[in-house]
């Protein structure tokens, strides 16, 4: 294949298109000038000013809190959904279940947000809960749509897994839950970590859903940024935006790094186990039967 084919050129141009605006944003967040478009030398004063902005800092704390809860719940829910989709071939309502798992991926956010708010309002009238919309309602909204992403990532992994290891454990008398916790979970751990990071980032990022289902006094960081951005481009916002970009990039990088490491460790362990088995088989007259793997 040619080194500089049309597609390779497009790839680099595309990556430039994706990253250039973000790089420019970060550079201009260090602009000393009050005018956003005029370069006035390097300065970190906009970052320093952020720390004194208690309203902003409160919303950062709230967003982080929601993101942590969302990551935990979305991984649990998404993994269960992925497990059902890949391991339970037939049950009543399976088609509907599959649809409900993937639909949140594409559903326009304004529709999801509006419908969830109307649900919460109806529930408050009917059963008196939730009295106040806030962290819990935002968490429910975020979990529902992040679980779809987790389900996609985890089911891709579950499909690749070698079923024979789980079957071997079952043959040796392990109960399904034990097999799931001791064998399946460790094997899908990298994708669980990736799903958790993804949910964390998605939750931290969401504006539309949070705007619908939040109550007064529970403003999240994107809502705060949005109301400031609406009034135009400002250097403080450049600083906030750069910090968000930095945080999420670091998270993504670590997610990728640890996933890769775990994957390599797993491969090495499997290879080592195979080698020891082969050696044992060679030194004795035993054949490597399946019972020996335990």
């Amino acid at each position, binding site marked *: 294949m040619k080194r500089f084919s*049309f597609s390779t050129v*497009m*790839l680099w141009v*595309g*990556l430039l298109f*994706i*990253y250039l*605006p*973000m790089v*420019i944003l970060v550079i*201009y967040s260090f602009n000393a000038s009050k005018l956003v*478009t005029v370069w006035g030398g390097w300065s970190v004063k906009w970052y320093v000013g952020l720390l004194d902005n208690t309203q902003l800092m409160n919303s950062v704390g709230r967003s982080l809190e929601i993101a942590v809860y969302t990551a935990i719940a979305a991984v649990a*829910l998404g993994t269960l*959904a992925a*497990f059902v*989709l*890949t391991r339970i071939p037939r049950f009543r309502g399976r088609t509907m*279940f*599959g*649809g409900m*798992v*993937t*639909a949140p*991926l*594409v*559903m*326009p*956010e*304004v*529709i*999801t947000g*509006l*419908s*969830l708010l*109307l*649900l919460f309002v*109806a529930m408050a009238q009917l059963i008196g809960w939730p009295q106040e919309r806030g962290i819990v309602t935002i968490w429910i*909204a975020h979990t529902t749509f992040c*679980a779809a992403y987790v389900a*996609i990532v985890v089911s891709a992994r579950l*499909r690749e897994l070698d079923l024979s290891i789980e079957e071997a454990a079952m043959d040796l008398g392990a109960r399904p839950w034990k097999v799931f916790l001791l064998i399946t979970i460790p094997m899908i751990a990298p994708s669980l970590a990736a799903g958790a990071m993804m949910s964390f980032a*998605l939750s931290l*990022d969401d*504006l*539309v859903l949070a*705007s*619908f289902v939040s109550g007064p006094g529970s403003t999240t960081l*994107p809502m705060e*940024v*949005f109301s400031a*951005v609406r009034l*135009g481009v400002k250097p403080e*916002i*450049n600083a906030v*935006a750069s910090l*968000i970009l930095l945080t*999420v990039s670091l998270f*993504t990088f670590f997610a*990728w790094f640890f996933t*890769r490491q775990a994957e390599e460790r797993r491969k090495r362990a499997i290879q080592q186990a195979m080698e020891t088995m082969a050696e044992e088989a060679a030194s004795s007259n035993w054949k490597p039967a399946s019972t020996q793997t335990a």
Partner: protein
Amino acid sequence: MRIPTLKSLLPNGRHLVIGIPFFWLFLFFLLPFAIVLKISFAEADVAIPPYTDIYTWADNQLQLILNLGNYLLLSEDELYLAAYLGSLKVAFFSTLMCLLIGYPMAYAIARASKEAQTVLLLLIMMPTWTAILIRVYAWMGILSNNGLLNSFLMGIGLIDSPLQILNTNVAVYIGVVYSYLPFMILPLYANLVKHDPSLLEAASDLGSSTFNSFWKITVPLSKNGIIAGSMLVFIPVVGEFVIPELLGGPETLMIGKVLWQEFFNNRDWPVASALAVVMLLILIVPIILFNKNQAKELEGKV
């Protein structure tokens, strides 16, 4: 089994495993749409919540009053019709542009070495996890009248006076393509990477040109990826709110923005619900198409 009586009362593991995600999604995803449908037939009211009940129970009579006024309003007021058409137009052309830009990019990634693939995918994926809001905001600074793009174009002498790009439809297209490009590339890559290169070799042995074998072999084989990517871009863009709000101007009419205004500014919940119901009806075919495609992917029978 020591206590069989208690055990038989508890739901078994299988029911629990299916039941938990099913219940959650039913309660927080499916049921809410029924409520939206219900409220779209209500009347706006000065109350908390700001709409009337559509059924009443008095004298052993259940009265169901469906107010079709909201839907009539949608069909009579040209603003709403224009907004629906505007959204569909923006979504269609953005999807096309994403496909034209994203296909070669996905192709190049799928052809790269295994190591490079991981890094490139990460580079593509990273922006999708970082605030769509912030990436759109970055463009506000670039596209404004005294922004970087205009300064650059004037600096190299291509134009004399700044171009008005921010607050026009052009800015909306730039923002949409920019934000949704990764969602086109990822499913295309997932599809393209599975192709068997020996098919292309065989075609070239039989004398087919590179473009001919690309068009006759690669493109038809990647049909599922194209569908998934296009739907992943088209459906959310129809309801997009942030991009037209920040980059668009008075000429930009998109339904997501109109719904947002009806809900938050006019506090007319029933009309907002009716707008959502009609949007959902428009999108039902693409959503089913996407779900069928995705269900196949999830179960691994591609």
